[in-house]
């Protein structure tokens, strides 16, 4: 006979848990962004590094202030989502942006994008894009002033007035160039797709190296942390729509591949649109969402006043997510098929 009964735990089933938890997922998202971050530093030198550090610090700090000191939970920064928000925000910013603006953007990303809605999981809009939209609204000039890309040789050179003090008018004109999309839109001048793929163009920190972003996305898909339907759907829609326009008027509308790899599309499609919190949970919904983003991106780029529309497209579709979720509930096992009642 077993002597004394050992100390046994009573609980209800299931007793086992998949070892993956939310912080693990966030950690892997960060890993997958490392190549993109390195590329940003390669092209934009120390400016990129500074902006990324400031954004992560800003998001982390804000999260800590609003969530971490609450009495109920112990330090929710540990879930890592604020760090991801910071990195992604940084990747959407131009390298020459004054750091104080970047910091402000990071703070607002957390406050407007998350805290106001009740924290992680309850927000409607992607926090990084919310922060970026805020900045764009406040400082339209600074946010659309793009430094030319460089290489490691110029690592230490700042790409703009990073260190300007708050509210002083920074000097922009010296080094600015146009992004491929702006060149296309305003001067009808296309850029080679290979340059777009490799990132040797001007643009925001993470807009440049499409290949590396795809690599990160591929890794996350492989680990099942990313819903591949969303980027695939966006790419397909953008490509089809752009090709259609291109067939109508090749002069005015660039071909599909240009659209795919220019601007923030790849970054947005792989890392922002797939933010699980703000995209639909149903598989059908993911396709609808992706198609919506794709259509809006091309429409804004071609018919709107702005050269780039990824940010607004995603934010707009974020707003539709609850609705999409509601109408795309899967049919349950043994439930009635659509149409029957």
């Amino acid at each position, binding site marked *: 006979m*077993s002597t004394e009964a050992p100390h046994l735990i009573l609980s209800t*089933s299931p*007793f086992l*848990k*998949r070892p993956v938890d939310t912080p693990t997922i966030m950690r892997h998202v960060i890993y997958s962004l490392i190549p993109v971050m390195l590329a940003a530093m390669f092209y934009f030198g120390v400016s990129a590094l500074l902006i990324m550090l400031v954004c992560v610090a800003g998001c982390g700090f804000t999260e800590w202030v609003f969530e971490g000191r609450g009495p109920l939970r112990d330090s929710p920064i540990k879930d890592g989502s604020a760090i991801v928000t910071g990195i992604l925000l940084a990747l959407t910013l131009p390298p020459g942006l004054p750091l104080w603006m970047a910091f402000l953007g990071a703070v607002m990303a957390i406050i407007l994008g998350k805290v106001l809605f009740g924290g*992680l999981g309850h927000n409607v809009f992607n926090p990084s894009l919310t922060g970026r939209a805020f900045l764009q609204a406040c400082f339209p000039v600074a946010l659309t002033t793009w430094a030319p890309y460089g290489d490691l040789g110029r690592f230490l050179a700042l790409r703009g007035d990073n260190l300007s003090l708050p509210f002083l008018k920074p000097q922009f004109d010296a080094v600015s160039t146009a992004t491929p999309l702006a060149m296309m839109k305003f001067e009808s001048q296309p850029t080679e797709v290979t340059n777009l793929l490799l990132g040797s163009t001007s643009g925001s920190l993470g807009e440049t190296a499409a290949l590396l972003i795809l690599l990160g996305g591929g890794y996350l898909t492989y680990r099942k942390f990313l819903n591949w339907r969303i980027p695939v759907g966006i790419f397909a829609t953008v490509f089809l729509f752009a090709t259609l326009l291109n067939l109508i008027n090749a002069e005015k509308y660039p071909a599909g591949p240009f659209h795919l790899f220019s601007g923030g599309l790849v970054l947005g499609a792989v890392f922002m649109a797939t933010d699980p919190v703000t995209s639909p949970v149903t598989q059908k919904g993911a396709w609808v969402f992706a198609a919506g983003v794709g259509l809006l991106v091309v429409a804004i780029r071609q018919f709107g006043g702005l050269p780039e529309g990824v940010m607004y497209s995603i934010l707009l579709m974020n707003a539709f997510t609850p609705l999409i979720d509601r109408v795309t*509930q899967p049919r349950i096992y043994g439930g009635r098929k659509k149409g029957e009642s």
Partner: protein
Amino acid sequence: MTRGRLIERIPFPDEVILPLSQHLGAPSKPVVAVGDTVHRGQLIAEACGFVSVPLHASVTGRVTAIEKRFHPSGRPSEAIVIACDPTSPQTLYEEGPLQWENLATPELLATIQDGGFVGLGGAAFPTHVKLAVPEGKRVQFFLVNGCECEPYLTTDHRIMLEYTESIFLGIRIILKMLGAEKTFIGVETNKWDAIASLRDQIPADLPCEVIPLQTKYPQGAEKMLIKAVLHREVPSGRLPIDVQVVVSNVGTIAGIGELFAYGQPLIERVVTVTGPGVHNPSTLLMPVGTPLSQVLDYCGGLTEEIAQVLFGGPMMGSAQYNLQVPIMKGTSGILCLTEHQVLSRREYPCIRCAACLDACPVFLNPSLLGSLARSGRYDEMLGLHILDCMECGSCSYVCPSNIPLVQRFRVAKGLLREQQAREKVAKEREAREQQERAKVGGDVQEKVGSK
């Protein structure tokens, strides 16, 4: 862990504890008294109505008590305790094959009920009730569930390898009873040896086919099995019989085979004892009523790191805190988990990652249901089909935010069921009152009208 090991019979225990309630339905009624000598296989408690089964002595010995004992459900419950006679050869009370060829369906059903059979997969629903085809229904296919109901368990796997003949005898009898066209045995592809051995031994005249199935929890759930094998879905809130199918677990069929071949009622069963918390995991044949502690001793005892002992599997089993509880008819496995396996983890907010939606076998939206349950909005959950949740636990298992989804759903379902029952009662009462009022009201109105 235990899949390659032959089924061993453990020595007869000193004492067996046979709870009167080992099945779903009414508890059985004792027909023996304290002090009586009983023989292995002898009836000791009879069924109490149709949804109930009798109980048989699982060892030869003397009844020492009929009293409340610890029951695996957590509540003490009435049980017959038999002290085993160590000198007895433990032969069967009435040994010998039962003849069945000339029996009609009702007689066969009665024989199965008299054998005390319940579903051995875990739910312990009386088998004869399941096999009884209601008036006006027809059964086209008989499905044999050879999918282990949960990860870790290997009971069914071993039974398919070692009781093949009994399984086919059982199938033959049940096919006759049901008047079904054909039998399918669904087996997961991680048991190729079982698939091969079954296929080799199918009698030529038996309309029976083995269907290999994907190894995926909860493949062993009835509704999943029907879909995987026959591509039919049982409509929400209905039973398999509504799609002309009857399902039974392979262990139960083997038991019925044994009943007709040797006259042995359900007095012993095969149990997987496994998990890192026990020294020698094995698959064992033991008398029903064997105390858990005795089984664990036979397996070398629990290890130092033991944290939880479960009856059943990791996804739907139940935790035990007293090692004196008996093995019951429905106990398919004993799982011993260690500390690091069961560490409670911190809950994070739902990040809407959709992992639970992908995992849910009945395609519910556990993410949304979870947040509704959390805020107590049970009524809204009803519209999202919470009552179709089969409590398989897959959602809780995959959730990266460690949200106790199924745990909350159980509470919600319980409350909703209660509420529905209450509403029904209230509605009936109201209808009655209205009738009465209509009578009285008529008089009142007349008076008012005349004023």
